[in-house]
């Protein structure tokens, strides 16, 4: 045994003799490289480089083209860095915020509450002084509703210093769309979409009888259900009562809310909804509608570009969700589609502001609108947009957005409401049961706030 042990020790010692000269430098280099890996990674380069992070895959080629043009004009290089899908992008931005290494320009995906947290943490520059320059010419170039999404007003519930903190690049509205060819197939006038809820249900029955698929949408991702539910809540009880519900002054068990929930039950029973709607992701919904497989879609104005890519011959039009009540006007969600924010800690703040001013000027907005088929945020170029986009733009006046309400519903309540509507659609629960469940979640959230 001792012989073996001696041999092993000798082997170990001889290996150590060979390795010893390398060991200390190796450990030293390991630490050096580790520290180098933790450094900011900034390289020496041209005088000014503005880095922009975004998630908009469809707009990437147009952004690159504009960046090239801008560098040619000003000598300032703009690096657009695409991080997709949007979930991954969102995580990246949050991680960068935690590490205080956000780029010069970035967008925020999420609710107004998240936006407020970014501002309060000092990650976003207040753009009000720039917007007000030259008799507020930059501010005036935007649709008021597009700007409102990026604004915090006096006395806002988020305790953010009032001001404009984002620049809208394009805008969107979320509406109903109908397939004109399938309307003809159902014996309906393709230029006369349903305007009342009763007409809508009647078409649903015809869809069911003809064994066609009705409404498709990304309701597996839930936030779009929330959107339609809010449209009808505004129509049935008005904005004030919706906001009072969010504040906790009106319960979700209120008859008006039960009526909102009952609409989904009625639509399901009439055959308005496509089967499988509750687990459908928006990409699948877009494919079904674009390929003439569904009569209705509930989608945002970004869909124009998507449908064009999937089926250029698709014949469709936009319409407002049919009114369920005459008490209040029908509202749709709309406002800024995508916005860019400037890093409050960036060394290139001024260059970033100048670039965003240029990007949102008339010519660049027309180019972006034509290249990406999105509604421009700059109202001066509306006369240059395609006809179908014009239909979406027409309803901009009726639009509203949770980001402009000054108060946000708790995400837990939104989830309970959205999942509850899914339960109603699959026939598992009644509107009354869901109203009770949502009210319970709301009570719990209110108790936490106190």
């Amino acid at each position: 045994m001792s012989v073996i042990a001696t041999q092993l020790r000798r082997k170990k010692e001889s290996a150590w003799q060979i390795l010893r000269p390398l060991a200390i430098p190796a450990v030293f280099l390991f630490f050096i490289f580790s520290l180098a890996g933790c450094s900011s990674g900034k390289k020496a380069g041209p005088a000014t480089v503005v880095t922009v992070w975004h998630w908009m895959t469809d707009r990437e080629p147009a952004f690159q083209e504009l960046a090239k043009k801008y560098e040619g004009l000003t000598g300032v290089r703009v690096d657009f860095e695409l991080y997709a899908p949007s979930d991954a992008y969102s995580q990246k931005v949050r991680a960068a915020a935690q590490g205080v290494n956000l780029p010069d320009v970035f967008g925020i995906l999420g609710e107004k509450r998240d936006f407020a947290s970014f501002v309060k943490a000092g990650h976003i520059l207040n753009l009000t002084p720039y917007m007000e320059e030259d008799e507020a010419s930059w501010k005036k170039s935007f649709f008021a509703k597009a700007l409102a999404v990026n604004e915090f007003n006096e006395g806002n519930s988020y305790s953010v210093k009032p001001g404009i903190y984002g620049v809208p690049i394009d805008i969107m509205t979320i509406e109903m769309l109908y397939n004109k060819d399938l309307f003809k197939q159902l014996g309906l006038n393709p230029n006369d979409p349903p305007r009342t809820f009763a007409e809508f249900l009647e078409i649903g029955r015809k869809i069911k009888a003809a064994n066609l698929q009705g409404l498709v949408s990304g309701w597996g991702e839930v936030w779009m259900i929330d959107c339609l539910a809010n449209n009808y809540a505004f129509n049935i009880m008005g904005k004030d009562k919706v906001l009072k519900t969010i504040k906790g002054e009106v319960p979700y068990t209120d008859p008006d809310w039960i009526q909102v929930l009952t609409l989904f039950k009625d639509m399901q029973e009439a055959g308005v909804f496509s089967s499988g709607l509750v687990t459908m992701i928006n990409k699948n919904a877009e494919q079904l509608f674009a390929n003439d497989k569904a009569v209705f879609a509930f989608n945002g104005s970004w869909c124009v570009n998507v449908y064009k890519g999937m089926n250029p011959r698709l014949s469709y039009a936009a319409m407002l969700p049919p009114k369920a009540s005459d008490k209040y006007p029908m509202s749709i969600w709309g406002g800024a589609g995508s916005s860019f924010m400037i890093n409050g800690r960036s060394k290139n703040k001024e260059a970033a502001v100048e670039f965003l001013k240029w990007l949102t000027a008339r010519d660049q907005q027309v180019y972006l609108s034509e290249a990406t088929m999105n509604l421009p945020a700059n109202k001066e170029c509306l006369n240059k947009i395609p006809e179908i986009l014009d239909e979406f733009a027409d309803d901009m006046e009726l639009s509203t957005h949770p980001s402009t309400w000054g108060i946000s519903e708790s995400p837990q309540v939104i989830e309970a409401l959205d999942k509850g509507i899914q339960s109603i659609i699959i026939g598992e629960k009644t509107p009354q049961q869901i109203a009770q469940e949502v009210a319970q979640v709301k009570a719990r959230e209110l108790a936490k706030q106190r």
Partner: protein
Amino acid sequence: MRLKSTLENYIFVLPATFIFLIFYLIPFIWVFQLGMYEWDGILPTKVFVGLGNFKEILLQDRIWWQSMLQAGYITFIALTFQNAIAFLLAWACDREMRLKNFYRVIFFIPPVLSEVVVGLVWQWILDGHYGLLNGWLVKLGFPCLVKNWLSDPTTALTTVAIVHSWKGFGWGFLIFLAGLQTIPRELYEAARVDGANAWSCFKKVTIPLMIPVAVMVAMLTVLGTMQAFVLIIAMTGGGPAYHTQVPVLRILASMRGSSRFGYACAQGISFGVILVVISFIQYRFSKHSRQA
């Protein structure tokens, strides 16, 4: 001399310790610490809530426990259906049969495919309107069986569990096959000399010697399946309603949907504790079975 040798040893251990600290220990402590705060992941300030998040999980979060039960159901299907298939196929491939190497490759294809791709392909196969499965059911004369497999609350979870089993049985197959190949052939020959038929050989030789392997496969199946979520996101997104929600999806919902990083950390810790307890029970069972 002794001190120098000790110092040299520590120098060699240092890089590994450094990596362990940075990537394992510090994140673990940080997650545990965050579990005691209410934090949205953005603001520099956090609100200390002590064990409030854990209390909420335990007493108020009904959906969390529903998701746990659902993950348990998927795990049960994986433990029984998936592992039974894996074992039977491994047993078949261990015997002298034609094209056995071909089958070995084929059976191992599902596990190496991307979970997102598998989820999307199965979503397409199971689609209520245009899905292949419903098309075949109609062609075979069973139109009454046509369903919206993933949107119907009565079938969604089981469908997801079966697809998960399809995706995962290859791992079990591989481990079982390796286990079967370690059984000495002499044991079978001796059993046959003693007059044992194929069933007796299987019952008296194969099964007892495969128990430790089966316990290990069961442990891996439980740990892997309880944490499954990519396939579910791709197929149902956790719907309809909450019918295919699993714990990891709830953690993601707390973090991304509700911006409650502290609560998500507390959920992660609770989930980790549950998995450790399950693993410990399985380990004890494995030890007991080996001794027996």
